[in-house]
């Protein structure tokens, strides 16, 4: 059983790595925050699986907490981006009259 859970945590870590790659590649700041959000969700699952691998169910509290705080983190990061629009990699795009991107 443990072997399967270890394999599962490896799979979850691969997913996290993929998300991290997207966070590094961008291209817009929103892709990065989205990837970090996904990274956080996967981290919750990883902690949950870890609790079962190590046989310490009280570790689940950390997963519980992270699922709540991940959200606060994303919202806070968005507030920062909203405040300084040029923190984004590209300058704010000029929106044409018909709303399309240049």
């Amino acid at each position, binding site marked *: 059983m443990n072997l399967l859970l270890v394999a599962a945590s490896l799979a979850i870590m691969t997913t996290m790595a993929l998300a991290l790659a997207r966070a590094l590649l961008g291209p817009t700041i929103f892709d990065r925050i989205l990837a970090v959000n996904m990274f956080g969700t996967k981290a919750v699952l990883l902690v949950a699986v870890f609790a079962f691998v190590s046989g310490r169910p009280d570790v689940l509290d950390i997963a519980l907490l992270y699922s*709540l705080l991940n959200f*606060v983190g994303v919202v806070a990061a968005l507030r920062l981006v909203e405040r300084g629009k040029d923190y984004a990699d590209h300058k704010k795009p000029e929106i044409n009259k018909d709303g399309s991107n240049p």
Partner: protein
Amino acid sequence: MRDNLILRVTARILIPIIILFALYVQFHGDYSPGGGFQAGVIFSSAILLYALAFGLDTAAKVVPNQALIATASLGVLLYAGTGVVSLFFGGEFLNYSLLADEPTTGQHIGIIIIELGVGLTVAAIMLLIFFTFARRILN
């Protein structure tokens, strides 16, 4: 994000839960991971979510600066007070086996009060830092 309805509705549902969770972590320090410091940070994150969803001024009304400063001081006072009380019972500073007749009971009481002091101070100081920086950015 000014008028983000979903954020507001979600925050309304989540904030009481996060606060309760903070208190759970506070009081279960001896059964599961956690303790005063973590509880303080979680509590302050609940208020932070409130500030992010409803605005800084609304949040500042709920937790006024004066109350925060008082809470931070109260926390330190609790911590130091417990230490001094154990001095009066003839032990070392913070030797809280002497707080009750039974050493283990005394340790139990001592650890709960100490953790409470830590939690109060950390929560208040975290919020003070947040409000100070957030106001500086706004101005």
